[in-house]
């Protein structure tokens, strides 16, 4: 049990750091795809398609095994956060883009009528409204992220899944070990779900959208 909790701590760490990177990448990629000059737009589309079109595990292995051949030596933990963050970020980019596009036309027109610059319009009018629309799909993506962290056990990181296999081999109590691990993952996922729901309620306060709290 204490061993499993150590693993769970690493799982949560990777989830949190990966989530920060994913949100950051998603925002950059979405804005680049919407407003960037053509080469930047291309770059962003390429990033999104590559990371959505290949398997998360393949990405993880690629960064872990292939980067050293180019003389880039990264710690396994850094590789894990990078791979998962970039992977979820690519899915998130489409979420962000969809949310921005879904902001009502009148809002855009009003911002232009008020003589706002593009940056002002995004920062003050569009993004705050898009933010609320993004929360539920981001909740789903964060659950995906929690689930993907189990892959890092395959690049020698001692996360919850790794510890589970270790305990399974040492104690041979297969059923209790794996049942316990499933429950711990469930607890982490439920925490994310509840957290996102609270965030959604806070964000949609005073707006005529979202769940009625």
């Amino acid at each position, binding site marked *: 049990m204490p061993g499993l909790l150590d693993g769970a701590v690493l799982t949560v760490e990777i989830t949190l750091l990966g989530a920060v990177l994913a949100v950051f990448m998603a925002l950059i990629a979405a804005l680049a795809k919407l407003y960037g000059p053509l080469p930047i737009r291309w770059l962003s589309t390429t990033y999104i398609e590559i990371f959505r079109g290949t*398997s998360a*595990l393949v990405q993880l292995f690629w960064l872990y095994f*292939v980067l050293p051949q180019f003389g880039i030596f990264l710690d396994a933990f850094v590789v894990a956060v990078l791979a998962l963050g970039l992977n979820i970020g690519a899915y998130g980019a489409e979420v962000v883009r969809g949310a921005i596009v879904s902001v009502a036309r009148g809002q855009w027109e009003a911002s232009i009528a008020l003589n706002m610059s593009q940056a002002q319009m995004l920062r003050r009018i569009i993004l705050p409204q898009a933010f609320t629309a993004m929360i539920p799909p981001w909740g789903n993506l964060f659950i995906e992220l929690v*689930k993907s962290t189990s892959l890092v056990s395959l690049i020698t990181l001692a996360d919850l899944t790794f510890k589970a296999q270790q305990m399974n081999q040492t104690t041979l109590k297969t059923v209790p070990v*794996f049942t316990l691990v*499933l429950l711990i993952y469930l607890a982490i*996922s439920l925490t994310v*779900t509840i957290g996102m729901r609270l965030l959604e309620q806070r964000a949609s306060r005073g707006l005529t959208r979202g769940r009625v709290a």
Partner: protein
Amino acid sequence: MWDWTFTFEILPVLARAAIMTVEATALGFVIAATLGLVLASIRLAFPAAGVVVTVLVELIRSTPLLIQIFFLYFVLPKAGFVLDAFTAGVAAIGIHYAAYCSEVYRAGFENVPRGQWEASIALNLSPWNTFKDIILPQALPPVVPALGNYLIALFKETPLLSAIAVLELMQTAKNIGSETFRYTEPVTLVGVFFLVMSLVSAGMVRMLESWLQRR
């Protein structure tokens, strides 16, 4: 950096492994599509049992597939079912995606207007005939694209089978890497294979979608 001779040397080996990956995808999706429909139908027919299905679906969807693969692979033999790695892995992937597919089917059922059910009662059709001849044919076509997207997602999960040493693409690439100490070519090729297959299948799903809309 990138050795083309080596690349052509390992291509046939990887191509054989790709067949295994495609097989796992096809079998897994058959399980996911049928079991998902069964779960959604149970929910529809017996609202009391629906709670159990809901809890099961949520449990499967919020825990990692990798753990579920290990669970089936290590736990079932203790219960007397000895499965080889391929069967256990494909079953785990199939069950995992059945949970997702059941939600898709549920959305399909909810989209059939109530009047269809009422008309079937008025025509004195049995519940089974109503479901089979009236509801299913209307519920399924609209959700086919969503199922197609899960097929692509399922396909991208098959590398997880390498964790229980199934000789699919990823495992083969890792084996080549550990034998030759060259990971760049095999792992990149695997990535390219998945990217091409995903883009092609995404395009096919889009075509299917427009074809269904034209009907």
